[in-house]
């Protein structure tokens, strides 16, 4: 069970502390801290930018930057939520409810310190859980055959679509459409053109990088620019004046509620493992759990109770390890950003799943170590540099957008060496924007694009090896049964979360908006 893990851990640690890798980790952390501090839509597509360089980057340098950024994104999320009442992402809405009132009481510094400490502990909790899961995942994967891997691929595509609750059919349609697009190219049997519209350019299929850039990056930049609302500088200055006091008290607040943090971290981890449920569900579940179980919370939550900041922030960071578990260990990306990460790994030559727990175990353990170190460094930096981060985070989107778009354009050419792929970017940008506008989830489409090749490969192998009997294999049926049960469970979790969050919001924000002018609680959700 543990064979090879120790030597893999040594290799991973060695890589982590090599100069270039460590520098990229710091760069990723810096980007994550800044991006996390941006109010609404601040999830800049770093992975998408880096995808253009996937062929030339050392995998450890690339993963250090990407995972470092991802690990601390949630650490500075609470900055605009607490200081301005604007959630840094939809996984931060609950933090506004108690964080902003605390700031208005002059306790911004204390609330932020408590949030950072909770994030740190939650993140480390997730790391420990990830490490604990790896040996068992290795044993489990050894029992799988091609039929089970085919089913895993289908689960990856369909699960995310199924749990797009309120958009079940749209989610499945997006997945089917993605699968259809991924089949463009040459057939795997004879290598003849398949669904290429008669164009030679499509003989090799459509490259993943311009598709993902078009689907995600461009619409997100559009959202950033379109949604830009000027933030009152005076309000920010007033709040920033109070962030330095109360840090020690905030840290002690978090440490004094270690059981609350533990429960919230469990929630974040569990929600992260379930593909498709999403970060905002973890956030709200942790908040609601704290409200129901903590003494006197029902009366004090929403009025400036520190526990209302601690619980959701712990869940917010433990979910990062949670989402990586199915992605790296089983090749099932549970969200759009994990699908993009998977695409990135595949482009670098790593196939998530069995190999990541086998010959590439050092890279997997490296990711775990990066998560741990990033949480520690990120929380420490955030604690002392909140004013700087807050000001950078409120940068004019019309400054960021052209820089990112320029980088993306270069990245597309670098990866594909073809200007024609800029047309692909344009086409998929339009598609991504229309899907976003019409409420069609994009993650199922991306996941299908990433998984299509392995789905087709394992399907063929399974049919050749087992015939139709592949559907009757005990492992296959067991996995199918568990998947169906998990899907129902997840839909139930979502339904409860939706009802609960709507009820919580209604009860609390009515009182808050009367007492706190300028407070803005949105009902969007996060691409996490």
């Amino acid at each position: 069970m543990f064979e090879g893990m120790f030597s893999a851990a040594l290799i991973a640690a060695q890589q982590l502390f090599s100069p270039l890798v460590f520098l990229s980790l710091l760069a990723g952390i810096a980007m994550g801290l800044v991006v996390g501090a941006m109010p609404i839509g601040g999830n800049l597509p770093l992975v998408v930018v880096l995808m253009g360089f996937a062929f030339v980057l050392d995998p450890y340098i690339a993963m250090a930057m990407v995972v470092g950024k991802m690990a601390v994104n949630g650490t500075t999320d609470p900055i605009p939520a607490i200081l301005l009442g604007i959630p840094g992402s939809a996984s931060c809405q609950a933090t506004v409810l108690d964080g902003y009132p605390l700031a208005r009481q002059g306790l911004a510094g204390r609330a932020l310190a408590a949030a950072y400490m909770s994030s740190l502990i939650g993140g480390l909790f997730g790391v420990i859980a990830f490490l604990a899961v790896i040996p068992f995942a290795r044993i489990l994967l050894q029992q799988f055959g091609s039929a089970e891997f085919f089913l895993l691929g289908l689960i990856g595509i369909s699960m995310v679509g199924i749990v797009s609750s309120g958009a079940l059919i749209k989610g499945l349609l997006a997945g089917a459409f993605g699968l259809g697009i991924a089949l463009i190219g040459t057939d795997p049997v004879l290598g003849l053109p398949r669904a290429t519209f008669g164009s030679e350019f499509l003989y090799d299929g459509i490259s993943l990088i311009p598709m993902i850039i078009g689907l995600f990056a461009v619409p997100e930049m559009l959202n950033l620019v379109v949604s830009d609302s000027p933030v009152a500088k005076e309000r920010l200055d007033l709040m920033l004046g109070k962030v330095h006091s109360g840090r020690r008290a905030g840290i002690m607040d978090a440490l004094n509620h270690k059981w609350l943090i533990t429960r919230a971290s469990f929630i974040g981890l569990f929600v992260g493992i379930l593909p498709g449920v999403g970060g905002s569900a973890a956030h709200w579940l942790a908040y609601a759990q704290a409200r129901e179980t903590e003494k006197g919370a029902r009366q004090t939550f929403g009025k400036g109770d520190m526990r209302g900041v601690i619980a959701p922030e712990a869940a917010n960071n433990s979910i990062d390890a949670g989402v990586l578990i199915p992605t790296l260990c089983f090749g099932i990306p549970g969200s759009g950003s994990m699908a993009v990460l998977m695409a990135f790994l595949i482009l670098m030559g790593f196939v998530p799943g069995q190999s990541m727990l086998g010959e590439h175990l050092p890279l997997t353990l490296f990711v775990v170590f990066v998560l741990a170190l990033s949480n520690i460094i990120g929380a420490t930096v955030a604690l002392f540099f909140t004013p700087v981060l807050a000001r950078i985070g409120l940068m004019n989107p019309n400054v960021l957008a052209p820089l990112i778009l320029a980088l993306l354009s270069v990245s597309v050419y670098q990866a594909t060496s073809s200007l024609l792929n800029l047309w692909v970017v344009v086409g998929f940008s339009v598609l991504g924007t229309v899907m976003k506008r019409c409420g069609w989830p994009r993650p199922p489409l991306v996941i299908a694009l990433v998984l299509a090749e392995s789905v087709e490969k394992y399907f063929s192998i399974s049919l050749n090896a087992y015939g139709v009997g592949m559907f009757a294999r005990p492992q296959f049926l067991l996995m199918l049964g568990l998947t169906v049960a998990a899907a129902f469970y997840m839909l139930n979790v979502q339904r409860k979360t939706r009802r609960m969050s709507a009820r919580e919001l209604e009860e609390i924000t009515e009182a808050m908006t009367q007492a706190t002018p300028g407070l803005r609680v949105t009902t969007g959700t996060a691409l996490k």
Partner: protein
Amino acid sequence: MPIDPGEANRDRSHGRSFWNRLSPMGITPDLVLESILVSLVAGYFFYLLLAVKHLRPEAARLPRMTAIGGLLLVVAFIAQKIWRAMHGKPNATRQILDTGFDEEGLSNRLIVGRTLRLSLWFGGMLAAIWLVGYHVAIPLFVFFYLLVFGNTKWWLAATAGAGFFLLIYGLFDLVLRTIWPQPALLRWLS
């Protein structure tokens, strides 16, 4: 021209606009957009069925399953839409996995204006890349966009543009030895 942020809360879509005349019939811009999207998706599934007609069964299997499954989903989607419209049920707006546009409090005019602005500039940048190449198009795009819409001082915008030129030349030309396409303008002139 930069859009006046003071317009954020003024909605100028009065009753005489094209969409306001259509909305009593239930025809909204979002419905038209979604119809186009569904047509595109359904059309592609039909194409997929036709495109694999002459391929061997092993090569045609998954595309056929995907296309047939997809078309069934399209039918289910349309049926759901009609049922909801007939029973007055609002469309579901929550998705856990993706965000819509965050346009709370913004007027339609502002949304359309900003969307068009970024789209046209982005499209212009891509056209400029084809015409004059990356080394000229990218720095110019960055410089002018920052200057006009980024409220940046000219020397900062120029520094950013120069920075991008150095990035392209330093990293891509010297380190990665990228081979760039010949710009169209150079091709015509030569």
